[in-house]
């Protein structure tokens, strides 16, 4: 089986999860976990191949007309991600099975289905070689995230956070999409492999800067970088297994994934890396501050996740192979310990029903194994030996020190890492070991399903730390090589000697320890600056959203205000504007027709119709208005008669009569006294509009007379009317033969109009008595 099938298998999992849950009930988690486990194993089988420097490809035709192929690529970097996704995914499904144990099984089924859908999307994103296919899956992750954050949709907070994450990541996705489309336009291909090969061409193109910006924005939203960092902490409204999976270990790293991928493409564009360092550092500072003042268990973890993402983005911005190794190592280390910590937090919250760190304490009595796992994971997070976190932190500092940046980023990194140490201490020691009096009993204890995940992940952290060689050789090395573009020999080890990095690590631990001890004081102190934090939170988002909605309200209120007069005015102004534009765009030349002989009779009748038309405006009484309308109608009948159109004249007279008859019936029922419906200024403006329209039509009609009409159609009708259609009245023959379908349509109009009127006036007309 080739690797690309894993996506389809995951999708199958999403489809079956709900039905399976109705059969297996509480055990569904265990059953479903076999699917990601199977994918994990099958991808793991490729490790040796990939570590040997091979890149696996697979391709299926999909939409060749648009240059979109189902192309997949498995190299060291995507392999690492695929393993993280499926490995942690396995643990998450197991954990979710236990977490939802008391809920109805349908809910568990729905949750697992979404988790599997998400896994499908993630696998697709990291494995795709075609940029559009990657985007397809990318947006699916946003959607799955939306559905999972709002999983408890009856809570308003969950709904709001879900919408926020969808707007931010979905909107970022659209920006990314623009970038991808421009890449396709510039290079004529959506294949990432080809883009990579022709990166110099891309960078040389005039669109390069725009592409870089668009892709960065897309990635920043997904990975919660400043100023889009706010959605991730709010996403903690999702059930904890989802938080552990999506919002710490995998999905939020997609932005990092993308930036790292494109780092190789934009290697020749220094501004790309510089921007990443700046944005990453800003994110680190902001989220570190936020972490110090956060209250909830999950909230603190979420803020530290944002900080970690900032570190990753900064690392990608640095150049050199050490930076590549540091990036990969930190991705791995962070995924292991952060997912474990979320699991532990979930168990603690689940057991007590209490989400605030300040109200938790002494949980180790009730949740002993969880407490151990939490401590192990947080030691890794704190970057203490012999955990994998320590190694990755050493690399981080090495990458920074070996880059050409000055001391500021290093100082930031030290401080932020110190905060991470503080967070690590606070989230493990405080709830589980401090203040045992705070929690006296728990609703639920530990079950096997709740323990497997954190224990395995925490153990993984220490295992890789103690025996780093296999992981370095099989996972980190190939992944870093794939990023760097050339093979890197990774010497991943605990002890590097007495280096500056070790000194920095020690400094970090020292400050971190201070933070743990002084946590409450710092927390209270920072709380007093609440108003300043608004700017670091989602005030920006709400401002933008409310701004757009406000603009929408105002524009809609102005346009769609319910007043027919406004509607007609705007439409007419538009029409006149269009005609004026057309007039000035028209070729200059004769547009006024030359004079023919003036026929006095016709001219008089025309004058009569004009008078009638003007009278309809001027007279106030509706009856008089109707009479004036009639004058215009009968006048044009006379015009028809005078110009050789007796059929028209007859019809016009008959129709005009009928209109008068019908309208009289209406007028009989309307109030006879009427008011001005328009103010004086409105009437003046309307008069101008009417004049403008009349002028435009005058020009159009006057210029039509310049050229004589081409009569070849009518000549043909004249010649064949009697001989082929057996009619002497050419007009009638046109109506019933040459253009009979017009007439058929016309009587259809009559039929439909009268049927509609028949239905409309059915039984609702009040009797009305007219004077004799």
């Amino acid at each position, binding site marked *: 089986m080739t690797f690309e099938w894993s996506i389809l298998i995951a999708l199958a999992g999403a489809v079956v999860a709900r039905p399976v849950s109705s059969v297996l009930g509480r055990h569904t988690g265990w059953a479903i976990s076999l699917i990601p486990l199977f994918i994990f194993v099958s991808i793991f089988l490729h490790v040796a191949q990939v570590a040997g420097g091979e890149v696996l490809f697979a391709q299926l035709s999909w939409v060749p007309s648009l240059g979109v192929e189902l192309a997949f690529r498995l190299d060291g970097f995507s392999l690492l991600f695929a393993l993280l996704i499926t490995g942690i995914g396995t643990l998450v499904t197991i954990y979710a099975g236990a977490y939802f144990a008391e809920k109805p099984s349908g809910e568990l089924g729905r949750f697992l289905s979404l988790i599997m859908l998400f896994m499908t999307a993630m696998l697709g994103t990291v494995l795709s070689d075609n940029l559009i296919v990657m985007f397809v899956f990318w947006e699916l992750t946003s959607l799955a995230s939306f559905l999972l954050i709002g999983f408890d949709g009856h809570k308003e907070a969950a709904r709001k956070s879900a919408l926020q994450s969808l707007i931010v990541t979905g909107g970022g996705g659209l920006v990314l999409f623009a970038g991808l489309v421009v890449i396709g336009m510039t290079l004529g291909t959506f294949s990432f492999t080809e883009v990579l090969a022709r990166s110099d061409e891309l960078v040389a193109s005039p669109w390069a800067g725009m592409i870089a910006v668009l892709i960065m924005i897309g990635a920043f939203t997904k990975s919660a970088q400043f100023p889009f960092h706010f959605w991730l902490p709010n996403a903690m409204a999702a059930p904890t297994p989802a938080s552990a999976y999506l919002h710490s270990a995998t999905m939020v790293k997609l932005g990092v994934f993308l930036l790292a991928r494109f780092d190789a493409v934009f290697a020749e564009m220094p501004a790309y890396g510089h921007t990443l360092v700046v944005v990453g550092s800003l994110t680190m500072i902001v989220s570190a501050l936020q972490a110090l003042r956060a209250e909830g268990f999950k909230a603190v973890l979420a803020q530290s996740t944002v900080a970690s993402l900032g570190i990753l983005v900064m690392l990608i911005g640095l150049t050199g192979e050490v930076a590549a190794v540091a990036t990969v190592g930190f991705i791995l280390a962070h995924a292991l310990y952060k997912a474990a910590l979320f699991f532990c937090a979930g168990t603690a919250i689940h057991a007590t029903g209490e989400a605030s760190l300040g109200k938790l304490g002494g949980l180790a009595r009730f949740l002993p194994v969880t407490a151990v796992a939490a401590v192990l994971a947080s030691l890794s997070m704190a970057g203490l030996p012999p955990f994998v976190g320590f190694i990755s932190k050493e690399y981080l500092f090495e990458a920074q020190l070996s880059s050409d940046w000055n001391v500021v980023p290093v100082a930031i990194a030290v401080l932020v890492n110190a905060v991470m140490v503080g967070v690590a201490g606070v989230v493990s020691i405080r709830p589980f070991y401090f203040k045992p009096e705070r929690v006296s009993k728990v609703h639920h204890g530990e079950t096997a399903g709740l323990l497997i995940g954190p224990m395995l992940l925490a153990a993984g952290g220490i295992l890789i730390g103690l025996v780093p060689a296999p992981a370095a050789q099989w996972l980190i090395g190939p992944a870093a090589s794939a990023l760097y573009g050339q093979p890197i020999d990774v010497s991943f080890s605990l002890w590097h000697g007495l280096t500056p990095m070790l000194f920095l690590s020690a400094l970090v631990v020292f400050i971190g320890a201070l933070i743990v001890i002084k946590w409450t004081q710092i927390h209270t102190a920072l709380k007093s600056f609440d108003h300043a934090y608004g700017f670091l939170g989602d005030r920006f988002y709400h401002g933008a959203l409310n701004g757009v909605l406000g603009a929408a309200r105002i524009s809609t209120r102005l346009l769609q205000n319910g007043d027919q007069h406004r509607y007609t005015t705007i439409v007419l102004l538009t029409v006149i504007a269009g005609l004026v534009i057309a007039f000035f765009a028209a070729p200059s030349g004769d547009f006024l027709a030359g004079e023919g002989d003036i026929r006095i009779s016709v001219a008089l009748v025309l004058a009569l119709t004009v008078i009638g038309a003007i009278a309809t405006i001027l007279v106030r009484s509706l009856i008089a208005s109707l009479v004036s309308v009639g004058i215009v109608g009968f006048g044009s009948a006379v015009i028809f008669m005078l110009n050789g159109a007796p059929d028209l004249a007859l019809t016009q007279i008959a129709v005009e009569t009928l209109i008068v008859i019908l309208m009289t019936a209406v007028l009989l029922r309307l109030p006879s006294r009427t008011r001005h419906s328009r103010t004086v200024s409105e009437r003046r403006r309307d008069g101008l509009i009417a004049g403008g329209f009349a002028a435009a039509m005058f020009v159009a009609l006057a210029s039509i007379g310049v050229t004589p009409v081409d009569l070849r159609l009518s000549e043909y009708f004249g010649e064949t009317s009697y001989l082929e259609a057996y009619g002497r009245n050419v007009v*009638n023959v046109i109506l019933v033969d040459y253009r*009979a379908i017009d007439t*058929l349509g016309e*009587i259809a109009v*009559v*039929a439909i109009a009268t*049927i509609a009127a028949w239905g409309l006036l059915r039984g609702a007309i009040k009797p009305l008595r007219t004077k004799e």
Partner: protein
Amino acid sequence: MSVIFSTMSRLFFVLMLVASIYMLFRGHNEPGGGFIGGLFAALAFALLALADSVAAARKALIVHPVVLIGCGLFLAFLSGLPGLFSDGSFLTHWWAELGSTHLGTATIFDIGVFMVVIGGVLALVFRFYEGVEQ
């Protein structure tokens, strides 16, 4: 007076009906045709409705106006069908020569128009003048 008016209107009614049918059939060669003919006939009924009552006019019409519309439209549709067989083309008319006059499906088409116009106009007049009593 209303008796005289009513009687006169009945006389006019018959005359106008005859005139309308004349207009209908001469239309192919002289000014006229289904539409004008239909209007004449409808005006005849309308006169009856205005002079007498809507109910009387509806009684005189016998069929429901909407049904008349439907039948007329369907007749016009049917008149187009023969062409499909002779020529593979809708509304290609068939002609038969009777002496000096040509009779064809075009006439049937015109009758369809005639019926739709009567039904339509009457539907409107009946609805608009229902409840308007002298």
